[in-house]
């Protein structure tokens, strides 16, 4: 009977014409193709399809956004914005992926770098060439790695030892951003939950846990005025 089959799929779909206004919670994947407003609390994945609009504060394990989200997301694992995904709000999650073609405005809080790296180390995961998202992100970014082609007559870099005023005003934003941005809920969890505490039932592989780059020796600091920029031929 088709009813039983649907039960086994354990998946909730909000169709394109449906509007839900209120609080939605659950322990299964939720796909939104219509509109959900209010509050969403899920222990698994939220998938906002192209036609989907979520105007809500969301707490979830993993969010994949191809549609529109306005509101704050707290995810215990990951928030992904795919091409076409649009979001305005704050994200608190140990992993955040924004690919080419996605747009986002808001704060991102992944948490302490050391804690994150240790958590990823514990999982023993490697930079995920297997992850489709990461692969496509890498592909799109690789184009930016090739130097901008320009004629050899382009002015050389000027190096000055003392700060000079820029022709334009310096970016009028505080250096330490997270401490200074106006508060807006939800306050990101200080202790990013252990990401391996949850069942690894979907694409949970972490990536990018390369060791910290070695600190360059500091012996040159005293002579910094004599530093010459090398030119690679």
């Amino acid at each position: 009977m088709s009813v039983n089959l649907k039960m086994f799929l354990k998946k909730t779909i909000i169709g394109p014409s449906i509007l839900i206004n209120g609080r939605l919670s659950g322990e299964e994947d939720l796909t939104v193709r219509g509109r959900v407003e209010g509050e969403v609390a899920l222990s698994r994945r939220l998938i906002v399809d192209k036609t989907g609009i979520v105007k809500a504060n969301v707490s979830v394990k993993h969010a994949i956004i191809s549609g529109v989200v306005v509101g704050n997301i707290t995810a215990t694992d990951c928030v992904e914005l795919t091409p076409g995904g649009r979001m305005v709000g704050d994200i608190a999650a140990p992993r955040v992926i924004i690919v080419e073609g996605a747009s986002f405005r808001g704060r991102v809080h992944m948490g302490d770098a050391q804690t994150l790296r240790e958590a990823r180390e514990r999982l023993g995961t490697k930079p995920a060439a297997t992850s489709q998202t990461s692969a496509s992100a890498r592909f799109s970014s690789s184009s930016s790695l090739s130097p901008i082609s320009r004629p050899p007559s382009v002015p050389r870099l000027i190096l000055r030892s003392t700060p000079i005023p820029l022709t334009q005003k310096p970016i009028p934003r505080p250096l330490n951003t997270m401490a200074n941005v106006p508060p807006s809920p939800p306050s990101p969890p200080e202790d990013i939950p252990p990401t391996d505490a949850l069942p690894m039932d979907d694409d949970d592989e972490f990536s990018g846990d390369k060791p910290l780059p070695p600190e360059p020796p500091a012996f040159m600091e005293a002579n910094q005025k004599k530093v010459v920029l090398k030119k690679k031929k």
Partner: protein
Amino acid sequence: MLQNEPINIIRKGITIRGSLSGGGDLVVEGQVEGLVDLKNHLTIETTGKVQADIRAEQLTINGEASGNIDASSRVAINASALVSGDIRAPRIVIENGAIFNGSIEMDVKLPDDI
């Protein structure tokens, strides 16, 4: 192809404090503290560490950056990057594995009825 392109490089082991400005591309393998204002492409390699407000056309981060970033075209925060600060650019990409804390400002086109 990379060999034939003239690129400015701040090598590993070099630290620069102060203000950097210019029109060429720059690759940072060492450390920069202060202010960076470039017309073209800034690349921070995995060994590179930049503690500065950065203004550039394009920015590729494989290493560490802290400070505010203003790019006229694109910012790529790659898998090995560790970045904190506020970023403003028309296109911003964060790869899986990158660590970023701060704010992002892109132009987000929302439906009218939201």
